[in-house]
């Protein structure tokens, strides 16, 4: 129905009053948005709540989307802002590498994936677990670049940074991720090589 339409065509339909066309956009971006919120919020239930809030906000202010950037970039800007205000409201302690709770959750998930015994799944799980152990800022930039296919210019726009700052942050995040993978997942990294 709406699968063949691109983002701008779907948006035009929604703006003309076809509310159901919005389901196409939700379906297309739900995993991307949820992954990003999960990287920032670090809790599945809360991340889902925030991700729903993001789509509701995007719908409400859809008329403000001018189409001069990609819809995904505009949407991820809402994700970033919504997550920041959510974290501020909750006054969550920013998870960092020394956050025991995150380690515990990540370890459990990792153990679960390892038990699958499927090699590919395990590698993907290892990468996902390693990303989830990064600081939210690092995890988000890595996710935006690799999973959400945003260029450095778009990442800078989403995070409200200069392009060079975004570039430096991405380098730094990858360096931390590499360090983490080498120290925490030395066996899997060997398999990877």
């Amino acid at each position, binding site marked *: 129905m709406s699968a063949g339409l691109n983002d701008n065509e779907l948006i035009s339909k*929604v*703006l003309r009053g076809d*509310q*159901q066309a*919005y*389901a196409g956009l*939700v*379906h297309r971006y*739900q*995993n*991307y948005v*949820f*992954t990003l919120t*999960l990287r920032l919020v670090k809790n599945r239930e809360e*991340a*889902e709540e925030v*991700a*729903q809030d993001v*789509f*509701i906000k995007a*719908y*409400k*202010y*859809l*008329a*403000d989307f001018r189409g001069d950037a990609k819809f995904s970039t505009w949407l991820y800007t809402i994700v970033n802002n919504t997550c920041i205000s959510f974290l501020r409201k909750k006054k969550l302690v920013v998870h960092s590498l020394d956050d025991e709770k995150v380690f515990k959750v990540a370890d459990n998930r990792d153990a679960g994936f390892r038990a699958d015994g499927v090699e590919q799944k395990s*590698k*993907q799980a*290892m*990468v*996902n677990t390693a*990303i989830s152990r990064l600081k939210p800022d690092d995890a988000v930039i*890595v996710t935006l670049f*690799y*999973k959400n296919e945003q260029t*450095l210019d778009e990442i800078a726009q989403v995070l409200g940074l200069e392009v060079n700052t975004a*570039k430096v942050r*991405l*380098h730094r995040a*990858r*360096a931390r*991720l*590499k360090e983490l*993978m080498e120290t925490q997942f030395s066996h899997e990294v060997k398999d*990877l*090589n």
Partner: protein
Amino acid sequence: MNTQHRMEERLWEYIDGTGTAGDKQQIEDLLQQHAEWREKYRELLEISQALKSSELEEPSLRFSKNIMEEIAKLHIAPATKTYINNRIILGIGLFFVSLLVAILVYGFSQMDWSSAESNSISDKLSKVDISKFFNNSLINVFMMVNVLLGLVLVDNYLNNKRKQFRKEA
């Protein structure tokens, strides 16, 4: 450590394809000539491929249904540009620019250009008498206007809140 860091940075640029054509050629030469660079490149490429192949997280099955139920109750807000009047913004801008120009014109016209006592503009400017315009009563009037504008804004804000509250009730 720094060399290592710089090497990784340049290799990441090469892998991402964000460097210039010259940078790309340089890295390719380095990769051909040095085993250390080749080793590091292979290592980073593995990580890059692993990151690209990692899966996205999936929300619960009710996720999109919840959103569609929620937006069924909503209306799309009019675009910001439809209720921001550019003429008003331009008018405010013009007001401040003309105020600035008027002050400058007045200041320069009051300067004693023929006086030989002082040569610098700042000396001359300090002798300009502005007390005729910026006296206590003028400041009081200015403050009163500001207070009035503030009260009008608060009144508007509270009115909107009341309307919103009634609509929700």
